[in-house]
């Protein structure tokens, strides 16, 4: 029997793998990968409840209220006047477990709250209390077919009342030992607002429910494990075939198994969907996968697990700080936004990140076996390029390449390889003494830098504020002073013999908007560059601003700060570039992981593309691992590290030929690898 059609006005969803319906829709379209996390996320707090009730709200109540409010918001309906149908296989299995446990062990003192929360309709009751809703509310249970039964009841109510009715289905895992006898997994909640035909309002889809005696058409199984499991092991997850049809605007009938009596098996729910497009954000490109969105995940040991991701953000858990979350900007699709407080200008509607990859550019024939550097003392190789391309919708494209170095791993020392000649005891003693000296020098360097920064912040910045009157020149003056201090600091380190430093090439003239991009092997790279290019602006990460020794200095120098979000970063950086400043950027976002090829974040390519600024590449080469991300500061290398900072000629848009590859880039900041043709003695007095 076919029921009259009903209209779907809004959907709400919350599950272990999707915090809302738009996320779930992307997953169901195959545009995003549902990733289960451990431990399972907690449903959002039921914020419509007064604080005392909110605190005690059960999982079922939280789930039901979260999805109900989302669906009502999308439908644009008032939660205070809508009748509702709540359905669940069991709304409070945890409380039932606790009560049964108490009863069977003779502990008869039940908490009154726990008792009234144990009733099946307690989530519905809390919803009505939170919304102040006095309309009819039914709570249904039918085992695995609860959701389908609830949908049927909701459609019947909306047709007989001739007004919208809210449908809420939620189910979550059972506690031990109940789960042994009833395998419900995950946490799933779905809400829908159904309305009678002809209801004036934005319609998402039209549903027709049909009750037939034939066996249900077998739904295409879900390829994704998280969805496949939910569609079979969670009563609410059994709505997934219908949700998939909704997400894909699929009009083929969907069968949901209904509570069966002795004979009848199923009524298919035919989803006849309007061609109307979904409101909501643009999805990521269909071809993108997690590893593509976040290249680090595959290549680096730094990321253990992806917590969640959407178009703008990937949250992942780091290895080194298991308790903290690293937020990586992964901008698969850029929404056109404007820097705050600037006049609107023509932005491309979207800029797509084309590809980011690490390659052994120009050295494809050189593996560890044939690489002469592999036998070099430092076992480093300056041959690896990180590349990031970004193309705007209007066809413009930018390619950024950063050349780094790859430390060849221990596996290069193959058994057949010749061992170095045995050193004399005297040489050994000298090496140990040198190493100890550099250890002390490094420690002094840390202390000295802290004192320098603090002194700069406490003394120089106030002096600048007091005496450098044209405010516009203040930052420039302070940067000159800071640059001199850093030059002095680095000079001290070289004088002490902690490092050896060479500058190569001509530092770029930074009198106009230029992005100075560099690889980032060590902690002191920025100091080396500021020493030569004091007027550079840079992006100070939020943690530096919280560092008491650096906060004042950063503020005085007018360096770009941001709140951790990519958007605030790009806003601030674009504003600085538009004022004609030169900006130092480490496109990798952080120090190069030791032994890994550079992996560029897309932010810098985006900045270059949208600011149309020049790009001045810098390569920093260091012969020994020093102050890297992976090693502790006191693990100084056996030999004195030799820094080579190589400035490459800046390239400005329109002045350089096309990048020969498949992008029609207006300019490419690229550097040639492995060429040392323009090496010359640095003019830096402290360099050897």
């Amino acid at each position, binding site marked *: 029997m076919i*029921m009259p059609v009903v209209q779907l006005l809004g959907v709400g969803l919350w599950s272990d793998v999707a915090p809302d319906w738009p996320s779930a829709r992307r997953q169901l379209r195959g545009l995003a990968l549902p990733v289960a996390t451990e431990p399972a996320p907690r449903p959002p707090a039921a914020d419509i409840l007064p604080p005392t009730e909110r605190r005690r709200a059960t999982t079922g109540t939280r789930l039901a209220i979260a999805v109900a409010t989302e669906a009502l918001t999308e439908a644009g309906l008032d939660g205070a006047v809508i009748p509702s149908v709540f359905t669940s296989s069991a709304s409070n299995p945890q409380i039932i477990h606790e009560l049964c446990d108490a009863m069977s062990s003779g502990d008869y003192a039940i908490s009154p709250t726990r008792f009234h929360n144990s009733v099946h309709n307690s989530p519905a009751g809390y919803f009505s209390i939170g919304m102040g809703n*006095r309309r009819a509310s*039914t709570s249904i249970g*039918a085992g695995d077919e609860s959701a389908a039964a609830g949908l049927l009841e909701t459609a019947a109510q909306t047709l007989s009342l001739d007004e919208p009715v809210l449908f809420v289905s939620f189910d979550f895992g059972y506690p031990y030992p109940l789960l042994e006898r009833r395998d419900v997994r995950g946490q799933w909640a779905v809400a829908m607002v159904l309305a009678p035909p002809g209801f004036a309002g934005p319609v998402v889809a039209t549903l027709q429910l049909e*009750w037939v005696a034939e066996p249900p058409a077998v739904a295409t199984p879900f390829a994704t494990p998280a969805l496949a499991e939910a569609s079979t092991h969670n009563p609410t997850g059994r709505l997934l075939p219908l949700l998939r049809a909704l997400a894909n605007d699929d009009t083929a009938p969907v069968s949901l198994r209904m509570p069966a009596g002795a004979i009848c098996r199923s009524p298919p729910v035919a989803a006849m969907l309007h061609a109307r497009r979904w409101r909501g954000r643009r999805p990521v490109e269909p071809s993108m996968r997690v590893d593509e969105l976040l290249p680090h995940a595959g290549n680096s040991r730094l990321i253990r697990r992806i917590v969640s991701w959407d178009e703008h953000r990937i949250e992942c858990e780091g290895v080194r700080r298991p308790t903290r979350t690293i937020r990586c900007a992964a901008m698969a699709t850029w929404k056109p936004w404007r820097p705050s407080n600037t006049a609107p200008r023509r932005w491309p509607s979207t800029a797509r990140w084309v590809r980011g990859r690490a390659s052994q550019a120009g050295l494809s024939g050189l593996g560890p076996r044939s690489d002469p550097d592999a036998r070099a003392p430092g076992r480093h190789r300056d041959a690896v390029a990180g590349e990031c391309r970004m193309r705007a919708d209007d066809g413009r494209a930018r390619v950024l390449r950063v050349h780094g170095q790859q430390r060849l791993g221990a596996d290069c020392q193959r058994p057949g390889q010749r061992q170095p000649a045995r050193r004399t005891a005297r040489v050994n003693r000298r090496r140990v003494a040198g190493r100890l000296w550099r250890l002390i020098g490094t420690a002094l360097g840390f202390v000295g830098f802290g004192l320098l920064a603090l002194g700069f912040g406490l003394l120089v910045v106030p002096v600048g504020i007091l005496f450098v009157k044209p405010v516009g020149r203040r930052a420039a003056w302070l940067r000159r002073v800071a640059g001199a201090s850093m030059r002095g600091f680095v000079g001290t380190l070289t004088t002490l013999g902690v490092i050896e430093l060479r500058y190569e090439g001509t530092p770029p003239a930074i009198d106009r908007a230029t992005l100075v991009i560099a690889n980032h092997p060590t902690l002191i790279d920025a100091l080396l560059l500021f020493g030569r290019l004091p007027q550079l602006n840079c992006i100070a990460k939020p943690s530096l601003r919280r560092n008491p020794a650096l906060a004042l200095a950063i503020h005085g120098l007018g360096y770009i700060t941001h709140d951790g979000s990519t958007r605030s970063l790009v806003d601030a950086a674009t504003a600085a570039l538009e004022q004609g400043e030169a900006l130092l950027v480490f496109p990798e976002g952080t120090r190069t992981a030791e032994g890994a090829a550079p992996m560029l974040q897309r932010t810098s390519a985006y900045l270059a593309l949208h600011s149309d600024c020049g790009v001045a590449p810098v390569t920093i080469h260091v012969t020994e691992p020093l102050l890297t991300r992976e090693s502790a500061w006191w693990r100084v290398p056996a030999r004195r590290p030799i820094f080579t900072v190589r400035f490459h000629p800046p390239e400005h848009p329109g002045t350089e030929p096309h990048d020969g590859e498949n992008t029609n880039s207006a300019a490419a900041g690229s550097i040639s690898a492995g060429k040392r043709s323009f090496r010359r003695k640095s003019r830096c007095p402290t360099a050897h």
Partner: protein
Amino acid sequence: MSTATVSRGIATGRPPAAAPIVVGAYTATTSVGVGIAALTEAMRNGRSGLSPCAFRPFPEAGCQRLDTAVGEIPGLDDVRLPSALASFDSRNNRLIERALPADGFAEQVARARARYGAQRIGTIIGTSTSGLLEAERAYFRRDPQGSLPVDFHYLDTLNLAGTANFVARRLELGGPAFCISTACSSGAKSFAAAARLIRLGLIDAAVVGGCDSLTLTTLHGFDSLQLLSRQPCRPFDAERDGISIGEGAGFALVERAAAAPEAGIGLSGWGESVDAHHMSSPHPDGLGAELAMREALDAAGVAADAVGYVNLHGTATRANDTAEGIAVARVFGNDCPTSSTKGIFGHLLGAAGAVEAIATMIALEQGFLPGTLNLTRQDPSCPNRVLAEPAELAVRHAMTNSFGFGGSNCSLLFERRA
């Protein structure tokens, strides 16, 4: 040999909203006895099935003895389910097994099945406990590792599906089968849900009703709320001190009027609402209750003064009776005869709405109004007219109220079609 066309055509519009829904058959089993005859006799004579609580589901556990009266149905432990349905074995389903054959209800349903076809008869049952006692027993029988015994069939006993599926399988019905569980209004709501599906043409008839059996959790839970009366409950009495829990089952066959004779009882209206006030206490002014009653009257198109009797929820808690009395008086005035039958069989929780709907139907059919047992002096804060004694009075329209936890309210309006 002919080819039957199974297509019923696509429903293009809504069926007429006023398609009358009638109750073709009903039965009830409570602590006063099995079947309608026992219930009628108890209602007429003011006989109560409540007795001091001696409920001991697993005596070896040394259950605490509660100082209260309960309406326990004797001999349920001896009921045996058909062997094909053995996995459904629970006190709740044994109660259903005992209740369904009474008054020829199962045969009436079989006749309806022959008339409409099994798939055109739905099963919508109200229950709050389902097989909870079976789960308590299973927990008691956990092995040393804490695992539940393998003969504990969760889906067929503790889960709500167990109750609806058992009724559907027992009566061989193939229509939509599900449970409504809105605490003490569950049984009444099943009538409304079935009537909606019938009016939409999805089914032609439905077995509705409710069934709840005693469990330790409900007894001790209400005890924790300090809502258990020490003696048989005294609804609307000035000295009332709480509820008496009972167990019972009531079932009715609701169907489209065209297929039934122009007689019997019709379900003319239903109203549902929520208090939106508190999880376990009613709105002090009975706002939600009033909404439900007015909605039922509006749905039926019956004026409030045409209603000759209101079967009250009347649990005998201080809060419920006052709020309900105020609300009933606001809707029906101070003269409409009302009474609570909870003194007879106790508060049947999820089955209360169904069994009291059946009590209301008995009153309509037999032309008498039941009294309120144990009512000696009406609470002056309850302004409605509460009948203490049964009254011989034939009325045409009668309403039954059911209110539950979560503020869930349901009022059903029945009509004698003669």
